[in-house]
């Protein structure tokens, strides 16, 4: 007998005496959503506020981004080629920006600008899908990660974002910078991934 047959026959044997079996309950989406909480509010404002609560930062224009990067002396980084035309005028000539992410020197990039496909207001979450070609590593390895989304792409809450998962083989939701509290419960950011997570919300 293969392991598959062994397991399935054990499962059937274990369940045979169970009649009837527990039914699958339906549940009302309202139950798990905080939508009423958010109704009538500006989703962008909620998103920015919730992102701030998880120590992320939401910016709404490129000039503010350039100022932030300059202030933190992050002048060398990666930018998704699809975003370059939009970003480079604001970044100015003091920046050096690469459009391929070389995995043999991941620590050379101080920032990575990649495309996100949306956000979730309730939790301050950014959504990334694989079919957008921005490399997974460019969103993960640099200390500062900037995710570019459009204002219209912000969902209200988790159930809504789940309903819109679609067909992509790999989707990741990112809610704030990478963090741990493994050492004595003390919060430290930038464990493996970014220590600074920025959402750049463009019109």
């Amino acid at each position, binding site marked *: 007998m293969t392991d598959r047959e062994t397991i399935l026959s054990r499962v059937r044997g274990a369940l045979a005496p169970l009649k009837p079996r*527990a039914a699958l309950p339906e549940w009302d989406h309202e139950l*798990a959503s905080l939508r009423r909480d958010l109704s009538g509010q500006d989703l962008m404002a909620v998103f920015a506020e919730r992102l701030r609560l998880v120590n992320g930062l939401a910016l709404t224009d490129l000039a503010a981004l350039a100022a932030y990067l300059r202030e933190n002396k992050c002048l060398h980084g990666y930018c998704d080629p699809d975003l370059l035309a939009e970003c480079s005028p604001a970044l100015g000539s003091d920046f050096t920006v690469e459009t391929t992410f070389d995995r043999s020197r991941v620590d050379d990039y101080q920032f990575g600008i990649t495309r996100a496909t949306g956000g979730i207001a309730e939790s301050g*979450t950014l959504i990334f899908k694989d079919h957008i070609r921005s490399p997974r590593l460019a969103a993960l390895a640099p200390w500062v990660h900037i995710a570019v989304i459009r204002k219209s792409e912000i969902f209200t809450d988790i159930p809504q974002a789940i309903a819109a998962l679609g067909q992509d083989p790999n989707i990741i*939701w990112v809610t704030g910078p990478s963090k*741990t509290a493994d*050492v004595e419960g003390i919060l430290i950011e930038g*464990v*493996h991934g970014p220590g600074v997570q920025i959402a750049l919300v463009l019109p």
Partner: protein
Amino acid sequence: MATQPIDQFSKRLRPDTKASVYDGSKKGHEKRTQVLFDRFPDANRLREIAGEIKQHVVENLDTYLPQVEAKLQANGVKVHWAATAAAANEIVLAIMRARGATKMVKSKTMVSEETELGPFLEKNGVECVETDLGEFIVQIDHDHPSHLVKPIIHKNRRDIATSFEKHGLGAYNDDPEVITRRARAHLRAKYLTADVGLTGANFISAESGRLVLVTNEGNSRFCLAATQCHIAMVGIEKILPRDHDLGLFLNLLARSATGQSLTVYTEFISGPKAPTQPDGPEEMHVILVDNGRTDVLASECRDILRCIRCGACLNVCPVYRQASGHAYRSVYPGPVGAVLSPLLAGEKFPAMADLPKASSLCGACHEVCPVNIPIPDLLLRLRDKAKQEHVPSPGTPPMGMWSLLASQPAAWKTALLAGKLLDYLPTSLVPVPALRAWEGSRSLPAWRGGKFRRWMQQRTPGPHPKTP
């Protein structure tokens, strides 16, 4: 007479370990309560529904397992089945060998703790690096995790700094920030040179075959961004029926585990990377692991298979807080472990049969469980199982004397009189070892036996209280 095994463990804990565990678990619980009950109008209803959904899955695994297999295969995933821990490990090794791979990075998975995958691979010449910070520290210390979501709750910064120094990760420095940065640099190189990334899964949707993985550190994402092959080791009970059920469970999991509304990284993986994506695995394997779960399914305690490993029951448990995780001598500590470990132990059940007894049945675990598992009931069922199977219980005071007294009024009265003596006699002279052990860490209240009977005899019955 010896005390119960769990008490012996608790007694051997260093005071600062005890403090770490106590504070860590208490903090976890307080945060959870806030974030769950502030945000949802009816958080308990959420728990009940989530429990019903998982119970439905558990009782219909015969339908769901083939369904999940078909979905995964349609998504381009290679599906493997492992009846035992050894089989699961062999499958992993075979995949590595077929690729000529010698390096693996892995993110935290409890199933791989069950199968002891790491040591097995190392023995077979495969480097296997734990990437979750806590698990990494456990690995370099050759230790075991002591909590489901906070594996090193039993260590403080000085312990960790010492291990890092011993392991060649820089001179002694116990600043948590420095510790974390050093791990970042060390593990980064590991991700980028590994060929295979191994993860578990928190959920699999039967509707889409999507695996859902949650982490805060981003280590599993790094595993899946830097390597070419993804292996997921998953217990057969991890299924959810529909994608939209994820909305409910994700809302509950992080809140119950760490008091966050959502973990930092939530991944939905339904297959190898998209062709246009430069990074990530082109090959994906899912290993569906039984390793004792079908025995649990056949038992009267199958409800425990609903568990989503959030750790909330550990945080709230007065016994866990005192004893820490290692006292449970198995992969799963705390209340969930007291139920699951004896069951997963199979023939070694007698060696674990003391765990269900190490509980005051206070019910706190049931109250916090996001899938509403009636843990105290299950503990009672396991106590009964031990009794039926005549498993001896060392360290538990025998009840024979008590039942003799309780069934013979004259003997009972004499015992009550003798009880008074306790007020005058130092307990060290009392010939009951269990009582002496108990007194080791507590003090006995003054004896007040016999008052109830006197009161009962002298009382004049009043009018019956009205029932509302």
